[in-house]
Every structure is written in structure tokens, then in C-alpha cells.
């Protein structure tokens, strides 16, 4: 009896397996749908940014489908995305990528959230020769491995704060500056650091403090005391949202006076909301801002995107959403230019992408990184108790003047 049951179970599972593999092998394009796959962090520590990413993807899918979809060989297709929750876990993300490709038969991938997870997925997509357009992995090491199927719509991490150093030198009358920097010890922040080292070399600037903050650290008091004692011209901090919030908290508490403070992750940390006036004058690197004057026919411009996104999801879009939406525009463009669903043709079309989206110009360099879009810097400015991010660099899109130097704490109300 027992044996019989076992045999039966085996038989049933074999049939199910066979059915699954048969039914899904044509899933790349099902009827009028082009199926994209994405492993995304809906739970775990990246879940808020994972959801921003997913909202960005969904918004673009809806918009493109509503506006006629994708035209390939004279036929209109619509986008559809299969999502799996990677639980913010790189191992899980790689497994899910494999599952999307092998079981669900997905032939085109959208990236996950964060550099770490993108790094976990890229070898899988590369192995199966699946083109992946990603919007949330900025680490420089993603673009130096010679990946052929990876395309990123965002600027690489080393470019995040380079502009800030140039700006500091410019404000210093073209003379080199003294830089103090504190970076968390993770792939992304260390890439940002490399960018600063390059900029320092280029401008002849001197790095007087170069602290690497351990990941577990939530106290920067020692670094800031050193900054206070050495009086640099610029203080650069990068350590994700925790780093940004800790830095502002302790800079304001310890009354550290620096003429210029440049950081990353200010908007993700909701710096201007959580720290209010204490965050004023902080200079922040951002991939995108709604005030930029880029345009496309799907979303109009940044301001319209901001408005539509708010209407649909009830909050202002962070840049993570904007860049994710842009990834879909890139795919649509590539499919239409390739005029085929052949993976390699789509990949070749992606490689020659040269377009403008509401998010910025997109053109891929040899490593797959976007080389056509500069990073922007905004500065937190307050009126009364409400603080806002104002674009101050590059000058072409600046809506406000860069306030320099930061007034001393003793002079701030």
C-alpha cells in the first residue's frame, strides 16, 4: 500500500513537472504580451526601496501599454512583468533569477533593488544570455566585469559626488581644497570614495581625513571630532540612509562647522523631513530630480511624472522609482529597433540605445553603464520649518543658487 502511494505521488509529480516545463517554454512572448521577469525586494531590509522600484516598473508598464504598447514586426504587444520576492537576500535573488529564466521561460529581465542584489543576479543572466536592464545597481564593479547582457540606466557610483569636489574647487577660486571623508565599508560607498579619490587627484586636492566606517557602526562622533580639529574645506559622507541620518544628527549636535557638506542618500533618508533645519545646506547627490528639463512622450517631463506618480501611489516618487520607469522605456525602444524577439538582436539594440527619457539621456558605455546622464546635486534649503531639496548643480538645471559657505552653527538660528 505504502509503496503504491509513493509510486503514485512520484507519477503525479512527474506529470506536473512535465506540464510546467512544457507550458512555460514559450513564455518570453505569450500572445500579445512580452513577459519580463524581476526578482525584487518586497520584504526584508530593502523592502521600502524594493517597493519604490516595483512601483516605478508598474507605472511604466501601465503607461506604455495604454499608449499603444510595443510594436514589433507590425504587431502591437503589451508588457507584463513576473515578480518574485527576493527577501533582500542575494542568494535568494540568484535562485529566483534562475527560476524566472528556466521555469518561467523569461527571456528579458529587469533589475532588482541595490548593487548587492544586482551583483548576485548578473552572473545568472549572463550565463543564460538574458538581456537585463537594471535601474538600481550603481556599483562600479558591475561595469568592470565585462558583462555583455547588463545595461544600467543610472550613473555609476563613483560619479555620485565627483561633481561636489569640482564645485568646492570652483568656490575656492580654482585652488585645490582639503577634503575630509567618511565612507561606510560596503561596495557602494567605497565606489563613491574611489570617485572622490579620482576627483582629488584631478584637482590636486588633499585628503586629510579618510575614515572607513564599519557597517555596524552607528556613531560617527570620533570622525566628526577629527573634522572639527582639522577644519577641512569639504566633508564628504556616504553610508546609505543610516550614514546620512547619523551624520546630520551628530554634526548638528556636535556643532561641527564645515564650509561644505556633501552626502548620498539624503532623499532616501528623508533627511529634510526627519532632521528638518539641522539638515539645511547639506549637498546631496541624486540620480534624478523632478525639476530637470528632460522629456519623453510617455511621461512628459519630470514634473508631470511626479504628479502622475503621486496620483497613483500617494507619495512623491523617489529617484529609485523614476529610474525604474526609465528601464521600461529603454526596453520598449530596444524591442522596436530590433524589430524582433531574438535575444541577441534585442541585446544589440540595447547596446546602441541613444535616447532621451524624462529621467535623463540614456546611452550605454562599454561596460553597460549609462554614460549620457550626469549626476545632479541638490541642496537642502529651509523656509521657516519646511525644508526642501533644491537643484544647484550642474548649472544647466540648477533651479537655485548654491549656498556657500555653510553658515557657522553659532550664526544659525
Amino acid at each position, binding site marked *: 500500500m505504502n509503496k503504491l502511494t509513493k509510486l503514485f505521488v512520484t507519477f503525479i509529480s512527474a506529470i506536473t513537472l512535465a506540464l510546467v516545463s512544457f507550458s512555460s517554454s514559450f513564455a518570453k512572448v505569450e500572445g500579445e504580451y512580452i513577459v519580463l521577469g524581476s526578482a525584487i525586494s518586497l520584504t526584508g*531590509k530593502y523592502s*521600502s526601496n524594493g517597493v519604490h522600484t516595483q512601483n516605478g516598473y508598474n507605472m511604466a508598464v501601465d503607461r506604455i501599454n495604454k499608449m499603444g504598447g510595443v510594436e514589433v514586426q507590425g504587431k502591437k504587444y503589451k508588457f507584463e512583468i513576473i515578480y518574485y520576492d527576493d527577501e533582500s537576500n542575494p542568494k535568494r535573488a540568484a535562485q529566483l533569477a534562475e527560476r524566472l529564466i528556466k521555469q518561467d521561460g523569461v527571456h528579458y529581465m529587469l533589475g532588482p533593488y541595490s548593487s548587492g542584489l544586482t551583483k548576485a543576479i548578473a552572473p545568472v543572466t549572463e550565463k543564460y544570455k538574458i538581456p537585463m536592464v537594471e535601474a538600481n545597481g550603481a556599483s562600479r564593479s558591475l561595469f568592470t566585469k565585462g558583462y555583455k547582457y547588463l545595461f544600467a540606466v543610472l550613473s555609476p557610483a563613483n560619479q555620485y559626488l565627483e561633481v561636489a569636489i569640482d564645485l568646492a574647487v570652483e568656490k575656492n577660486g580654482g585652488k585645490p581644497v582639503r577634503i575630509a571623508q567618511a565612507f561606510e565599508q560596503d561596495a557602494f560607498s567605497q565606489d563613491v570614495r574611489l570617485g572622490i579619490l579620482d576627483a582629488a587627484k584631478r584637482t590636486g586636492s588633499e585628503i586629510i581625513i579618510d575614515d572607513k566606517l564599519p557597517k*555596524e557602526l552607528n556613531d560617527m*562622533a*570620533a*570622525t566628526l571630532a577629527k573634522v572639527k580639529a582639522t577644519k577641512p574645506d569639504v566633508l564628504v559622507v556616504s553610508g546609505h540612509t543610516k550614514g546620512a541620518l547619523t551624520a546630520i544628527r551628530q554634526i548638528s*549636535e556636535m556643532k561641527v562647522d564645515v564650509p561644505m557638506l556633501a552626502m548620498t542618500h539624503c532623499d532616501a533618508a528623508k533627511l529634510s523631513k526627519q532632521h528638518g533645519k539641522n539638515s539645511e545646506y547639506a549637498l546631496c547627490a541624486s540620480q534624478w530630480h523632478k525639476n530637470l528639463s528632460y522629456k519623453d512622450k510617455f511621461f512628459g517631463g519630470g514634473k508631470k511624472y511626479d504628479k502622475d506618480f503621486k496620483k497613483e501611489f500617494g507619495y512623491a516618487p523617489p529617484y529609485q522609482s523614476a529610474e525604474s520607469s526609465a528601464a521600461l522605456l529603454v526596453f520598449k525602444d530596444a524591442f522596436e529597433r530590433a524589430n524582433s524577439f531574438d535575444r541577441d538582436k534585442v541585446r544589440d539594440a540595447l547596446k546602441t540605445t541613444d535616447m532621451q527619457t524624462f529621467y535623463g539621456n540614456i546611452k550605454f558605455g562599454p561596460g553597460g553603464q549609462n554614460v549620457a546622464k550626469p549626476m545632479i546635486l541638490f541642496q537642502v534649503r529651509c523656509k521657516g520649518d519646511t525644508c526642501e531639496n533644491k537643484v544647484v548643480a550642474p548649472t544647466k538645471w540648477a533651479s537655485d543658487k548654491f549656498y556657500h559657505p555653510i553658515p557657522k552653527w553659532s550664526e544659525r538660528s
Partner: protein
Amino acid sequence: MDLLIFQAPILMVQASLDGILLGILFALIAYGMALQWGVMNIINIAQGDLVILGGYIAYTMYLAGIHPAWGVIVSPIIMYFVGWALYKLVINKVVDRDLFISILATFGIAIVFQQLMNFVFGADVVVAQSEYGTTMLFDNSVTLPNSKIFAAAISVLYAIGLVIYMKKSRLGRAIRATAQNARAAKILGVDTEKVYAATFGINAALCGVAGALISITLTLHPYVGLPYTVRSFMIVIVAGLGNLPAVAISGMGLGLFEEFADYILGTEFRIGAVFMLLVFILVYRRFKLSKKREYLK
């Protein structure tokens, strides 16, 4: 640059004060851990997550417009019941088993707590503002955030309160009796089950106080509990169980050591340096113990 601290000796004052203030806060968490480790022989891996949960209670009050400093009163009350419930649900099943089982159980609790906090409070890093300002010393060259001074003062108050409670109250004496010999205490009429539940509750309450203080001095995130567990574990290892003054000194000492390691060895080595110290202390202890054993032979 390595020797900045010697060029500007005032930094030594800053480093010492920073280290001591933070050390006192960590000592409070460690004291809770030492207490329940001593009484129940349980190493609580979820210690840091209880701290963060306490922090989120204060943060929720802050969002509701109440000053987060009130969290040092509200948070321990809520956390006491959380701890008590945890004991009734999970810990009472592992309390008499070996250490490994209790580590596994509390590790599981830690994961559940992290996910729950992530679910309820979201995955963003948050801070509560105390607006306490700053104390400037030595012509503004040493700055101490008043929130850190407040945190240290409250920690000391709670610690003293607890010591008195342990010495004078009925429950306190029952807890100490159970710690010395649970079986004997039981024979003499102490309801050890109740004592265990209360101990776990008191530990959670201490975590609640520490969490509320962390919400106004540092940052909160559902997944940052582990460093607090590790830190308090180290303090307890160095200090030994059931010895409050030793825990306080060990907490402050580690805080000091870490700050100075930062200036002398560099920021990237500060946590590594603390772990090196731990290894050193453990080896030294073993050496001393083996000598003692030889006497006994």
C-alpha cells in the same frame, strides 16, 4: 594624521567623554543580559532586537507628538509585558535545557522580531528628535550632545533603582535566590516559574529603556539589533555575571577603548580592536583559571 589625538590633546577629553557616555548606555543593556543569563542560564540573542523594539515604541510616541524622552517610562512598561509574554510562549520551554537550545530559540525570536518590526514600522532608518541641544566645554572645543548626557543619566538611574530593588524587595530577593540555586529556592517555597517570567520581563524592560534612549541619540532600523546583542554579550563576558559595578566598568571601558582605537588605529579598525581585546581577555582568563586549577590539584 594617525597622531592627530596627540597633536590636539583636547581630543582625548572628547574621546573619553564620548566613550564613557556611550559605554554607560551599553552597560544598561548588558546588565539586563547578565541578569537573565545569571538567573536562567539563557543567552538572549534577541537582546538587541528587544532594544530596537523599545526604540520604536519611543519613536511611535514621537510621531504622535509626545516627546520621545517619555519613552524611558512608557517603553519599559510595555516591554515588561512583551518580555513576560515571550517567556510564557517560548522561553519557559527551553529554560531548563542546555545553552545551545536557548541560543537557537532566542535566535529564532530575533528573526521574528526583525521581520515584525520591518512589517509594522517599515524598512526606513528613523530617528526621533529630542531637541536637547549641546553642552560646550573648554571654549567650545569639546561638545557633548545633551541627549547623550541624558541617556547616560537615565541609564545610571535605572541601574541604581534596579540594584536597590534587587536588594530590598521580595521579588528581588527571590530572583537572587533562584540565581544562586534554583532547586533550593524552589524547595524553600520560591515560585521559580514566576521568578523566571519576572526576570525576563525586567530584562526586556531594561532593553525598552535603552531603546528609547537610542531613538534620541542614535538611529533605529529593524535590522540593527545584532550589534547591540554582540556588544552587551562582550561586556558581560568581560565583567562576569551578576556583578553590576563590573558591568558598568566593563561597559565604559570598552566604550573608551573603542574611541581611542578609532583615533590611534583608524576608524576601520575600531570594532576589530574591541574584538581583539575580547580574545585577549578570554585567553588571559583561561590562563589564570588554569593556574587556579593547579592549586586545587
